[in-house]
């Protein structure tokens, strides 16, 4: 089969439906069996800022949204000005001549197209300009009409038949115009292939469904960009699996409810972004002290404070690992891509039950709203770990919820069943009775920290690829995976591939795997989308070596070439 790898970027005013257009294109391409990978950027303002959506579609695995674009759709002059320099040589510019004046460039293919006019006069609905645009693109690049109609149907079917009809009409109008007026170029054909069923999913959806699959039956949340759709998805789907979701008054209430629900016997989760995670600090300590399993998803955005609500960053690692007063064990994990969001969320629930501690999952904005094509999970191989529950016999023999054991664990009583005990945020003895004896505090603290060992045993807490013999290594975490893969793929082709270790378990750090990796390394680059080098810091503290940090204060993900450049510098 011919190799297809096409990057499309649409830019315009926030509020013009750019994200919707992008998502429709993406889903249609995915259903036509392409791998897709998207990226979006939009302002914190609902209107009035600049908005951008990028989709990459290919028939081979892809790890980033691509650095340069093949097709740029500029809906206004600002979009053109901001993005034209990212167009590849020989790339295509689709634009509305009414609002965009491109340079006179020979190296580009210009496709002027009266998008606004078509929406206004032929569809009689200015707000369908985005779908007209989709139609134009569909015709130019042979994106299958049936898949597009299917997606539009699903998307707007519930909005009343009038809106749906307008949108279907807009699609046709766009296609028709392009067919009549724009001579097609063959090298930018997408077209359709028929393949196996694939799942197209965003990082946030993967988290929401991972939770449901892991057995989560209680969710409480408060809206916050870029985590809100986890709440929205679970408000809709939770009742369908017999669970409860609730939008509450703030993030403190959200985590408190999740803790209450878990105490009551349900696997429970909340999802937020940095500001919410900060507000939850005290309750994280409570769950740790009272040994109540709970999962907290933090979809990171630019910080601190309100920061850059719609931009990506990986700067909540410090707070996730160290936030909350006192000596407070917790588990922190991070998925590296959209698919991994699904698996790490399941992992998060497993670790919560396995350690009876709070688990923080660090995703980020760049994963949250990105659609990727992922394989259908091999459900049989997914392990879901359930709660250690006290049996009536154990209760009869004298159950102590907080008794000190070798691995630190005791089974939990569940309200409604024998095993009544008091969960407590005050220091306590084995029975849960408050105790301010320094000796008891010592052994209880040791016990709570001991449980962290139970999180370190799995093999899948790191991901390693590349040339294990290389003396140059990359250690990183989270969503930088795509850019790093792009870079290492290029180096592999040249025979210069470094060794790469992704750490998915960030607290406690997997000592064995990291030490193994470091054995033969002379230079280790640690790329992170944060200013202060938060993983670098942890590696320094725990492994006493001096990594080469590669930091970006945030606001956008790394591009593959930035990683490549750094590796080349170091090699």
């Amino acid at each position: 089969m011919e190799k297809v790898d096409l990057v499309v970027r649409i830019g315009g005013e926030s509020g013009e439906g750019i994200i919707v257009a992008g998502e429709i294109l993406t889903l249609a391409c995915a259903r036509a069996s392409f791998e897709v990978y998207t990226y979006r950027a939009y302002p914190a303002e609902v209107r009035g800022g600049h908005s951008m959506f990028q989709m990459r579609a290919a028939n081979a695995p892809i790890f980033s949204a691509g650095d340069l674009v093949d097709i740029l759709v500029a809906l206004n002059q600002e979009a053109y000005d901001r993005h034209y320099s990212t167009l590849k040589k020989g790339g295509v510019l689709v634009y509305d001549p009414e609002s965009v004046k491109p340079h006179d460039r020979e190296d580009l293919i210009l496709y002027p197209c009266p998008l606004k006019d078509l929406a206004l006069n032929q569809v009689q609905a200015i707000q369908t300009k985005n779908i007209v645009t989709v139609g134009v693109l569909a015709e130019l690049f042979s994106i299958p009409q049936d898949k597009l109609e299917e997606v539009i149907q699903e998307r707007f079917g519930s909005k009343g038949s009038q809106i749906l009809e307008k949108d279907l009409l807009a699609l046709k109008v766009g296609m028709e115009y392009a067919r009549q007026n724009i001579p097609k170029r063959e090298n930018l054909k997408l077209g359709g292939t028929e393949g196996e069923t694939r799942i197209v999913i965003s990082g946030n959806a993967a988290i929401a469904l991972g939770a449901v699959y892991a057995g989560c039956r209680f969710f409480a949340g408060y809206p916050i960009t870029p985590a809100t759709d986890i709440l929205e998805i679970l408000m809709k789907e939770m009742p369908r699996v017999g669970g409860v979701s609730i939008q509450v008054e703030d993030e403190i209430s959200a985590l408190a409810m999740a803790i209450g629900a878990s105490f009551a016997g349900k696997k429970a989760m909340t999802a937020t972004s940095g500001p919410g995670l900060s507000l939850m600090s005290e309750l994280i300590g409570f769950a740790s002290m009272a040994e109540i399993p709970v999962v907290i998803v933090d979809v990171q955005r630019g910080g601190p404070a309100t920061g850059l609500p719609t931009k990506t960053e990986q700067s909540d690692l410090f707070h996730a690992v160290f936030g909350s007063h006192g000596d407070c064990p917790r588990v922190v994990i991070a998925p590296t891509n959209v698919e991994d969001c699904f698996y790490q969320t399941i992992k998060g629930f497993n670790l919560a039950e396995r350690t009876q501690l709070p688990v923080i999952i660090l995703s980020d904005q760049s994963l949250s709203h990105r659609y990727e094509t992922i394989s259908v999970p091999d459900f049989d191989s997914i392990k879901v770990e359930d709660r250690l529950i006290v049996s009536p016999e154990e209760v009869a023999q004298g159950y102590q919820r907080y008794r000190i054991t070798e691995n630190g664990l005791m089974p939990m009583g569940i309200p409604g069943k024998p095993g009544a005990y008091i969960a407590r945020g005050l220091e306590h003895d084995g029975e849960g009775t408050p105790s301010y004896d320094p000796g008891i505090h010592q052994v209880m603290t040791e016990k709570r920290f001991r449980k962290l060992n139970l999180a370190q045993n799995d093999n899948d807490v790191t991901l390693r690829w590349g040339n294990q013999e290389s003396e140059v290594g990359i250690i990183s975490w989270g969503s930088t995976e795509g850019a790093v893969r792009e870079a290492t793929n290029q180096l592999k082709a040249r025979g210069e591939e470094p060794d790469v270790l992704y750490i998915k378990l960030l607290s406690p750090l997997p000592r064995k795997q990291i030490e193994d990796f470091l054995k033969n390394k002379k230079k280790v680059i640690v790329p992170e989308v944060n200013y202060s080098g938060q993983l670098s810091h942890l590696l320094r503290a725990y492994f006493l070596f001096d990594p080469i940090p590669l930091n970006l204060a945030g606001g956008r993900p790394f591009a593959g070439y930035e990683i490549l450049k750094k590796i080349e510098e170091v090699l």
Partner: protein
Amino acid sequence: MVRTALDYKGKLKPTWCPGCGDFGVLTALFNAFARLDLDPNNIAIVSGIGCSSRLPGFASTYGVHSLHGRALPIGQGVKLANPEVEVVVVGGDGDAFAIGGGHFPHAARRNIDLTYIVMNNRIYGLTKGQVAPTSDVNFRTVSSPYGNFEEPINPVAFAISVGATFAARGFSGKVDQLTDLIVAAITHRGFAFLEVISPCVTFNKVHTYKYFQEKVTPLPAEYQPDDRTKAIEMAQVMQDVIYTGIFYRQEKLTYHDWISKIMEGVRPVTPKELVLSQK
């Protein structure tokens, strides 16, 4: 088997000061549990932090002795996740209306079927006597050396005005009436709020047993707890007479009634199907 109050008594002897009003609340609560013959394993008492919030530790039931101000959201989580369990949330006036004050109106609006008992001593007991949001204007404490400037919150009036479907007041000096009120609160379907006047004998030298004993009066026999405005008015009487009893009671769909309705309406799905439907 019919249970007695003793069945709810925990191993731990209460650590309150001798004479603390909270003893009366504990006794009445156990009486109420016994009267309703509840299984201790099917009760969860959830509290925040404060002298009064120690209460769960003295019972044989499930309990959460949580963080200052977080009793209500934790209690709501318990009930939403496990609606068969009888949830009783307890705590102090500071816990309820200062640090926890942001949760209160929402718990009321949601009408989740639980009972919330606030032991009001008009002071911060545990931290040794600072001014509380329920303290009178001009009240002098270690933290209000020139007297309090802020209008006190009237718990019952506040609860009614934010939508509680049951609001009552008792006095820890009258354990029998208090038992009746707790029984009524627990059996009420929806968010039931109960203020208990529960003197702090150690730090509040103004609002003592004696002070209240002279004022506390049951609501008039003919009083009907079905009029919000009237209920708020009666709750605000605070000079020579302080009323006790049920000020307000309303039948309304509980949060669970809504959830049940929805669950009936939706098309159930297995987690696997849900994953596969993403395309």
